[in-house]
Structures are given as structure tokens and as C-alpha cells.
């Protein structure tokens, strides 16, 4: 079968998802057939790209038709990962291929049940491949698509607690993955809300592991600033804010993480966020907690009355609005308690009356 015919075959598979035409019925067998087709024309980037798309299609088709997962599913993910990694190694400059491969990886890990069954080696291999692909894509292209898919894939891996533990415990995987997400957030977090969202979601999942937030804040302090940047750049996007404020809350409350942003701009930003998405209890709760933590850590710094006004006013409104949310009310009360501890109300009481 020449390259053109292989390409047509793979494109057909990618379009129909009917892997039985690849002469096999079991998922791993069907996947193996696609991988074999890809291997027969490794030098053709088009074949490799079509193969990646076919792998995704086959996986989705299989996932839609089964509720049970077994080792065969794990084998399929491993086979696909190896084939795509080899393809990317051979075509390191092909941006489209990287995008397609990362998109396929995203699809492969969508199902948490599959990810949970991967095991240590497969998980590490997968996240290393994804991180490597993200790095190569970032080096060759200014498109955010590859980073979007990569961050999303890593998020879904980290969403599985077992997999997240594996990633964190493997030094190489940890370094590669966190580094890839950090670079993606730095390069594309401001321009792409999806990149910001998935990167923050990944960090949020990782930070749910004990001590991870502390370690990340200490080892990669830039991440904290990048999360603040994401909040500032996407201050009206609840999808981003839900994850970003959660991460920042972890950094702020679980650690003594230092944000290079000053107290005033940070609180002002959070007040803006709370005003914008005042109905989102999760964001509001996190933002109030960050404010509280910031005020606690920087109590020696003066807070100008304007900011206090904004803070008190928005806290008041949010407590009233989220009257059924103990978390929000508690966070609002904590802010006021901290202001009291910082003597802010005393200053307010004792200042001369307005004339």
C-alpha cells in the first residue's frame, strides 16, 4: 500500500471511526492496525497526522460503545502514545501534526476511569510525551492550539488522583509537566482563555495533593504570578476564574507564597473579580480567602481608604447575595476580622469626620 492509499485509508478511518475496516475488532487490535499503517509510512507527515486523527476517532468510537474498561484500553493508550511520540520525533517541525497529536492525547485521557488504570509507567510515559510535544510546538509555532490541547490533556490526567500522585512522585515527569504548563501559561495564558483555564485547572488538581501547593510556590514562584496574571487577563471569564482563584487561594492560604504584585493592585484586582462574577460562589469564596490571606500576610502595609471602602462594600454585598453559602459568609467575616486585627476599623472610627 503506497503512501497515498494509506493516507486515504487513515482519513477514512478518522472520518468513520469504523476500526473494523482495519481488520481487527478489539480496541487494541484496531489501534494496532492504525499504528501499523502509520509505521508503514513514517516519513509522511500527512500519514502521521491522519493516523493521529484516526487513533482519536477510534478511541472515541470505542469509548462510546463500552462502559467497561480493561487492560485492552490501557494498551490502546500506550500504543497510541508510542506511535504519536515517534511521529513527533520524526516530524519535530510540523506544527499541525503536534496539534493533532496533542488533541488525540486529550481525547485518550478524557475518561478518568481509563487514566486511573494506566499505572505508573504508562502515566509517566504519557505525560512526558505530552509535555515534550507541548514544548516542541511552542518552539515552532505561536499558535495556542497545541498548548490548549496539551494543558487540557494534562489536566485530565491530574484530575485522576492516582495519576496525579504518580506524576508528582516521578521527578522527571513532575519537572516536565509543571514546566510545560508554566511555559504555556506564560506564553499563551494572556491571549488564550482556554490555555489559562486548562493550565489553572491542572494546577488546581495538582494542588489538591498534600504539600504540592507549598512545594510549587517555593520551587516555581513564577507560577503564582502567572496565575494572578491569568485572573487579571480573564477577570470576566468564570471558567478561568473558577480554577485560577482556587489555585491562588491554595497558594495564598496553604503557603506563604509571595506574589510580586503589590497588595493594593492584587486586592483591587480581586475586588474587580468579585464585582464581575459576584454570583459565582466558588470564585467569590476563593477571592475573599485570598484577600484575607493577603491582608494577614501584609498587615504592615498601609491600605488606602479607597481600597478599604471597595473591599467593605463588596464584602457586604456578597454576604447578602450569598446568604445561603456559609463558605462565602465565613470568608467575608474572615476579611472583616482581619481588618479588625489590622486595626483598620479603629482607624476608620478615629479619623476626623468628613467635612
Amino acid at each position: 500500500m503506497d503512501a497515498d492509499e494509506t493516507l486515504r485509508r487513515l482519513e477514512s478511518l478518522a472520518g468513520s471511526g469504523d476500526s473494523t475496516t482495519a481488520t481487527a475488532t478489539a480496541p487494541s487490535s484496531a489501534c494496532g492496525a492504525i499504528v501499523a499503517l502509520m509505521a508503514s509510512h513514517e516519513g509522511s507527515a500527512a500519514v502521521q497526522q491522519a493516523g493521529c486523527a484516526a487513533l482519536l476517532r477510534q478511541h472515541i468510537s470505542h469509548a462510546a460503545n463500552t462502559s467497561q474498561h480493561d487492560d485492552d484500553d490501557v494498551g490502546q493508550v500506550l500504543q497510541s502514545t508510542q506511535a504519536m511520540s515517534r511521529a513527533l520525533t520524526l516530524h519535530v517541525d510540523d506544527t499541525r501534526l503536534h496539534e493533532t497529536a496533542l488533541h488525540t492525547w486529550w481525547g485518550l485521557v478524557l475518561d478518568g476511569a481509563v487514566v486511573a488504570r494506566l499505572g505508573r509507567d504508562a502515566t509517566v510515559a504519557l505525560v512526558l510525551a505530552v509535555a515534550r510535544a507541548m514544548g516542541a510546538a511552542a518552539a515552532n509555532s505561536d499558535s495556542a492550539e497545541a498548548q490548549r490541547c496539551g494543558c487540557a490533556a494534562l489536566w485530565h490526567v491530574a484530575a485522576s488522583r492516582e495519576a496525579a500522585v504518580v506524576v508528582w512522585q516521578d521527578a522527571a515527569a513532575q519537572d516536565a509537566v509543571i514546566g510545560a504548563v508554566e511555559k504555556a501559561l506564560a506564553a499563551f495564558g494572556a491571549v488564550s482563555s482556554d490555555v489559562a483555564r486548562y493550565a489553572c485547572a491542572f494546577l488546581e488538581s495538582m494542588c489538591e495533593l498534600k504539600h504540592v501547593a507549598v512545594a510549587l510556590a517555593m520551587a516555581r514562584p513564577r507560577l503564582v504570578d502567572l496565575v494572578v496574571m491569568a485572573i487579571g487577563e480573564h477577570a470576566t471569564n468564570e471558567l478561568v476564574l473558577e480554577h485560577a482563584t482556587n489555585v491562588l487561594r491554595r497558594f495564598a492560604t496553604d503557603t506563604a507564597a509571595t506574589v510580586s504584585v503589590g497588595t493594593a493592585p492584587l486586592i483591587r484586582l480581586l475586588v474587580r473579580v468579585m464585582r464581575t462574577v459576584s454570583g459565582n460562589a466558588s470564585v467569590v469564596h476563593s477571592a475573599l480567602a485570598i484577600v484575607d490571606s493577603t491582608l494577614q500576610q501584609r498587615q504592615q502595609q498601609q491600605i488606602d481608604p479607597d481600597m478599604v471602602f471597595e473591599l467593605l462594600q463588596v464584602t457586604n454585598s456578597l454576604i447578602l447575595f450569598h446568604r445561603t453559602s456559609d463558605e462565602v459568609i465565613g470568608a467575608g467575616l474572615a476579611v472583616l476580622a482581619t481588618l479588625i486585627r489590622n486595626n483598620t476599623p479603629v482607624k476608620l472610627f478615629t479619623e476626623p469626620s468628613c467635612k
Partner: protein
Amino acid sequence: MQIKYATETQPSTRSRLALVGLVDTIRHVATWPSIGDAVRMQVAQVIESMDVAQRASTGAPPVATSATAATRAQRRASRALSVYLSRDSSSISANNGLLTPDQSQDQLSIAGRSLSEDSYTAVSTPDSTRNPYISAQAEEVFAVPPKLTLSNSRRVAQPLPSAATQQGSSSSRRQSLHLEPPVHADFGPVPLPPNGRSRQPSNVSSLSFGSIKSGSDYVTADSSSGGPGYAVNMAEADQVWARRRSSGSGSFQSVDLAGARRRSKQQQYHQQSAMSHSSSMVTLHSAAISSSSTSVINSGTTADQGDSSKPFDVSQLSLAEMLVIVCWSSHGWIPPFIPAAITACCLGELLFHETIAIAQQMRLDGIHRVLISKDAADHPAIKHNKLLRSLSDLIEATPSHHSFRSWIKRLGKPSHVRFKETGRRKQKIDYSFFVS
């Protein structure tokens, strides 16, 4: 016309207002049935901390802690609604706010909560010879929220020194009052009669209202027999207790402010005050109370502009000011531009939480009734209930107007809206002012 918005005030004052609002909210949080025990405890702790902070700022001794400290702190915090003084050319009234003397500066700091500067700053008298009179009133005339009590054994305010007050011209009337020693707003436990009308003393003598003063939301009343004057807070929703000046006997008088507003006799004065006063809020109140005629609207232009024919520029009014008009319109008259204001809220020109803040402010100002005409209720912009929710979350909406009641019925009463039927509404209302 120069309208002063809260946002134009000094940052420290705005912060103080916001703080007062937040503290008040927290007091309310403790009454919400939905909150958990942890939050309830947190509320008590914050209130206590606040109380300690406030006492520290006033130089008062610290509160002794005990097992019931949280409960007592909450009770104290409720009482700490207390008073603040505002004074125009002839009298001082007590208003609902925080009275905080600053010992270090020997100056009375006043934390009020109103959308208008005039409402939380003290104004001086143009004539220093009246100071003793003012001092006496400052000592003995208090307006307190309903259900609170005044003590006739423990005092609340100390006399103003005769030479303490700064002089101010009529064009610049807001000045700080200097008090020595500090004034404390800590009411004692002596209960007042539950309802002045339902339990009239045998020696009741009726008083007519002297006037409604421009410059603040209060009413002064003079005895028809030439007795002492009284000042009561118009911003109190239903009823205000005032202690008789110089009586020393612990006798009390009550006034139904809602009734006072309805007195046709007052309307003329309202119009006059609307013409002359520079405070947009007060002018708006008065205009809304007075009449539905367009001439009253026109009276909103202030004398200092010298153009009494120029109407309010509605577009310059804040939603709060417009809503206040609605709330104060006890005749059910709704200015024709109100739906436009509500539209501004619904369309997002004002953020939802800002509307909430405004509504909260209104409640703090003692406005508990929202009257909405049928026309306004039918306005498409408010049919989706957004305004009702934002207000009724915070204002104990009292359905004193049929159209409001029917409107709510039509919309479907949200579970969190509470209707409070007061005894006053079931009785024949006597608008007189009694002295026992």
C-alpha cells in the same frame, strides 16, 4: 443643582460608611436561619472584635469577657446603632448612626450612613448664644430604632460646652461638634412603653408638629402649651421614641413618623424646604412626600442656583435617589421616571451588587417599605423580578400598597420575602404627638 453622591465623599468617610453597613449586615447574618453554627460563632466573634475595636477607638474600657460575651457583644452591637447628632440652624436631632468621640482630638467623630453628606455631618448654629439650648437637646433628645430602649438613669450624652461649637456661616453649615467629655451611645435597660398610642397616659396633651427642618431627616415638635421642643428622626421607619427635654422624669413621647409624613399640614413645609435646601437627598424626600404635582418636582432645584423653574435632571440622579423617592411616596404616587431608573438597574448599568448595596443602605436608613405603582410594576424591565429580589433580599418589604401586594402575588412571592404586618396597620392611626 449640585448633587452629591456618596462616591464623591472622602475615601475615609466612604470607608466608614461601608464599614457601618458591613457591621450591620453581620448583625443580620446572625439572625439568618440558614447559616451554620460555625458561621454563627464567627459572627459573634467578629461583632465582639468590632465592639472592642470601637471601644478602643473611643477610649472606653474594654469589655469583660465571659461565657456569654458573644451574646452580650451582639446585644451591644445592636444597641450601638445609637445616635449621631445633626444640627441645623436651630436644633439638634439624634439620628441613627454611630457616635464616636475622638478623645485625642477632643472632637466628635460621626459615622453616619446616608447617601448624603448632610446626614452624617454635624452642622453648627449661626448663633453661638444658642449653644446651651443645643447642648440640652444634645443631651436629652434621642431617636432610637423601634424596640430599643433608652435609659433615664444612665446617660447617654453629656452637655455640650457652651463655647465648644465652631461657628459656621449659612453657606457652610457642616462643622464638627466639639464635646467634652466624650459622648457614649450606650443605652440602658429601662424599657419604653411598647406603643405610645395604644397606651395613652391619662394626662396626654397633644402637640402639633412644629416643622420639618431642612437639612436633615427629622421632625421637630413643639408643645402647644409652649413646652419644650423635640427632634425626632424622620428616617426611622415606623416609630421613634424621644425623651422629653429637661423633664428628668423619664417620661417619653412617641411619634408616628409615617403618620407625620401623611399630614397634609406638613406638605406645605415640605415644599418650602425642598425649595431652599441644598441637600439633594432631603430635597428629593420632601418633593416626593409633598405632592405629585410637577411643580414640586421643579422645586428640586435649589435656591443656591437661583433657578426654581429648572427641573431635576433625572439622568443625573442615582438609582438610590430615585428609589428613595419611591419609598417615601406614601401616597402611592410614583414619579414617571422611576421605571427608567429601575431599567438602569436591570440592564446592568448598575451592577447587581451595587443595587444590593443601595437597597441595604435604604434599609439602614430606616426605609422598610417599597411602594411600586401598577404602572411601574408592569414595566417590562422589572417584570422579571430582578428589582424585587434585590430589594426584598434586604428590605423587609411591607405590603402597604395594594398594587405592590398584587404585583408580588402576580410574580410569585420569593420564599425569602417576608411580609411584616404591624399592629399599627390594623388600627386606626392617630398621627398626634403625645406628651405624658
